[in-house]
């Protein structure tokens, strides 16, 4: 059972453009939604995270939008740069549990 569905699986964006990655979850008990960035040969690194009592969170060029009623959340990368080229994972977890359920990942390529 895929509890966190992520799309698209690959994305090509021009430098300076906006990258948008979407995720949907099924388990309403999830209450923490992090996004991870992973470069080849490295472990995932926490990028930004949101809790369901907030509809939007922005950190620099990265913004999470959260729609609790639709059980959807998305990552927007503004002014995308070639250095943003990586695989991005949305994820979800529950209070008291450290198990993080990951999406399938989106391979982002930002071309000059």
């Amino acid at each position, binding site marked *: 059972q895929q509890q966190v569905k992520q799309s698209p699986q690959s994305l090509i964006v021009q430098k300076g453009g906006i990258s948008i990655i979407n995720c949907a979850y099924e388990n309403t008990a999830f209450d923490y939604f992090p996004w991870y960035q992973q470069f080849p040969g490295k*472990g995932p690194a926490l990028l930004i995270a949101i809790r369901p009592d907030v509809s939007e969170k922005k950190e620099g060029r990265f913004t999470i939008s959260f729609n609790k009623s639709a059980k959807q959340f998305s990552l927007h990368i503004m002014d995308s740069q070639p250095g943003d080229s990586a695989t991005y994972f949305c994820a979800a977890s529950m209070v008291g*549990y*450290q198990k*993080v359920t990951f*999406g399938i990942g989106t391979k982002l390529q930002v071309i000059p």
Partner: protein
Amino acid sequence: DAGVTQSPTHLIKTRGQQVTLRCSPISGHKSVSWYQQVLGQGPQFIFQYYEKEERGRGNFPDRFSARQFPNYSSELNVNALLLGDSALYLCASSLDPGGSYEQYFGPGTRLTVT
């Protein structure tokens, strides 16, 4: 401060063999979790340990086992290796199992089973 460290970096084993992977958490972190990441997929939760006790287990067979030591480092053991066990094994540490959600991942151990 040093991040999460894992050893070895790469490992090649034959079907049926056993393997032990090691993880050292960030200093001060008492919780360690293990994940399996198959190529092209997101990480899948295997185990979580806190204060040397198992706090969670994912949908993995009993061939997978783990333990945590008094210094909070951890080992993941896999017996009777199958070709499908080939993956990147990730260790993540956090301050505690539930109060702080931030997990910090190590670089992983790339296991290849031939």
